[in-house]
């Protein structure tokens, strides 16, 4: 018996048995599967798969068996949902059992490292959460106003994709990108200025630090007052948000070369410009790239939030506030998903560029 080394499987099997004996739905009779024969059949498949693993120990096809267990369990749950009753204890136990099977599958995969595994495991994990979310929401019949089901969000996403996409592009290219470029450039430029003239740096840095303590989204109303309702105010907020991480990271990066390296430059009688381009900037690249990545995420999020202020006319923030007022929460969440997707794509793009350009720098993370 394999129960001791892999308790999850034994537990899952026991849980399914339990789920068969306890009420599936609130108020239904004990373990009455006749109302949902398809679900019953699938659960039987799941149970058989688990019992195989319990009695025969880890076999070569363990992952396949586990996959069968997970898929059949999830399908069973799905068909139970079709009956549209509120889940009872039995129903929840069945969900727990399926999740345990999924966890065991993930554990098996994680023990076999590889590039596919690195992408597959988090993806499956994410899928598991989404499944839980879906079943929990529909099984407990939570009001869609409070928490929408992933299926609803997906439908809204697919149905309104063109609008969402154009909103995303608006936010990205009209507000976020411009603000990002301005903020990063100013932060970078100021850092170099502070490095060239340390006196100025020592004088003004404390004010910069104090200013960075102000939550930038609070500046949004002021930016609207100064720049109007258009993209300028949003870009201004993004500029302010991205300015400080860039300033701080670039300053830290320019200071990384240690005494010996700087002495070397001195011995070559290098001018400031030469030292900057040949020593300081290359050393600063890892930290600058970190700031660029961080700022990309901040830029998108603060652009969206900035779009709440003044009367927004376009973009993802606009979409959220409008649909919120209309109580179309599915669409609101779909916009959030779009925002996350775009943010991930941008972050991924910068990471890719980083890998391509700094692969030879041993200090790069």
């Amino acid at each position, binding site marked *: 018996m394999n129960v001791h080394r892999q308790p999850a499987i034994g537990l899952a099997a026991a849980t399914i048995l339990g789920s068969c004996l306890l009420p599936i739905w609130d108020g239904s009779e004990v373990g009455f599967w006749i109302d949902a024969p398809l679900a019953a059949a699938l659960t039987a498949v799941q149970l058989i798969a688990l019992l195989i693993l319990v009695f025969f120990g880890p076999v070569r096809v363990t992952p396949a068996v586990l996959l069968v267990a997970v898929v059949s369990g999830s399908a069973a749950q799905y068909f139970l949902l079709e009956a549209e009753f509120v889940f009872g204890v039995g129903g929840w136990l069945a969900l727990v059992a399926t999740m345990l099977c999924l966890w065991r599958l*993930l554990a098996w995969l*994680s023990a076999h490292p590889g590039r596919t595994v690195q992408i597959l495991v988090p993806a*499956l994990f994410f899928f598991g959460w989404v499944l839980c979310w879906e079943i929990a929401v529909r099984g407990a019949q939570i009001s869609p106003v409070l928490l929408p089901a992933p299926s609803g969000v997906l439908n809204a996403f697919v149905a309104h994709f063109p609008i969402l996409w154009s909103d995303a592009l608006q936010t990205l290219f009209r507000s976020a990108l411009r603000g990002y470029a301005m903020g990063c450039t100013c932060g970078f430029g100021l850092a170099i200025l502070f490095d060239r003239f340390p*006196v100025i740096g020592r*004088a003004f840095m404390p004010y910069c630090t104090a200013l960075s*303590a102000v*939550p930038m989204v*609070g500046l949004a109303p002021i930016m609207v007052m100064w720049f109007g309702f258009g993209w300028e105010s949003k870009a201004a907020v993004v500029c302010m948000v991205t300015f400080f991480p860039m300033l701080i990271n670039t300053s830290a990066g320019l200071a990384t070369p240690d005494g010996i390296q700087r002495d070397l430059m001195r011995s070559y009688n290098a001018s400031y410009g030469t030292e900057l381009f040949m020593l300081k900037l290359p050393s600063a690249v890892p930290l600058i790239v970190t700031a660029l990545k961080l700022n990309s995420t901040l830029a998108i999020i603060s652009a969206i*939030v900035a779009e709440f202020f003044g009367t927004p006319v376009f973009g*993802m923030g606009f979409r959220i506030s409008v649909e919120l007022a209309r109580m179309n929460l599915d669409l609101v969440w779909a916009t959030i998903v779009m925002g996350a997707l775009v943010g991930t794509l941008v972050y991924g793009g910068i990471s890719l560029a980083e890998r391509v350009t700094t692969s030879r720098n041993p200090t790069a993370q």
Partner: protein
Amino acid sequence: MLEQRKTDLALIGVAGLAILIVWYVAALALNFPQVMVIHARDDVPLPFTSLALEALRPARPVLPTVDQIATEIFNTTFGHSVTSPRSLVHHSAITLGTAVAGTLLGATFGLVLATAIVHNRTLEVSAMPLVIASQTVPILAIAPMAVVLFGNLGLSGFVPKVLITSYLCFFPVTIAMVKGLRSVDRQMSELFETYAATDRERFFLLKLPASLPFLFTGLKISAATGVVGAIVSEMPTGGGVGLGARLLSGSYYGQTVQIWAALVASAAISILLIWIVTKIERRFLVAGLGR
């Protein structure tokens, strides 16, 4: 060292003076058009100096002067009792409370998650990419909505605000602690192997103390993020308490000075929170670590 300190203070003072001068000039320039509009229909054109003076004291300035902001802060801090909704202290305390609660909750979750990730390979492979990706989700955007919704359900505004703030706060601590718990060098680990130490002993006697400097670094970022989260989640469409609400109402009613005062208060509590973390850090990290 002392000499450097003195010169630094002098430099900072000079810089501050320069900023003040630029500020006043800017205030003059930006507020002037407004004043011109007000006095456009005057029979007798007022001398420039009195116009200028008025530009520095308008009721609804485009750019309030430093003394206007300072006066507003002074009045709202000392002019009202702490429980009054007009008191800046009242709103600041509420925001601070939310920020602290959210930061603590997020930090605790981050600590537990980091410990689990470091000890469980499955969790590490499956959860880490999701943790990193979670930061691209603009939860901040639905913060006001969540507060309203929870309010409709009867849950007080505090709980959803803290939940949203903690969502923002857990990430820096998680990342810092994962790095910190793994920061132990090989020889130290082998030292513990020669003592046949258990995993538990290794965790509490070696990994956890080694990770403390990282924890505090993450905690500082978390604290700053917490204030932002608290403020944004206080901006539901329809009033409320806290600095976020104050910012919003200031923008609705055109009370620019109120907005600026609220911003200064936000910066103050941000700095306060980070200062507290730094103080705790000094207390816990012994002289020996020298970090």
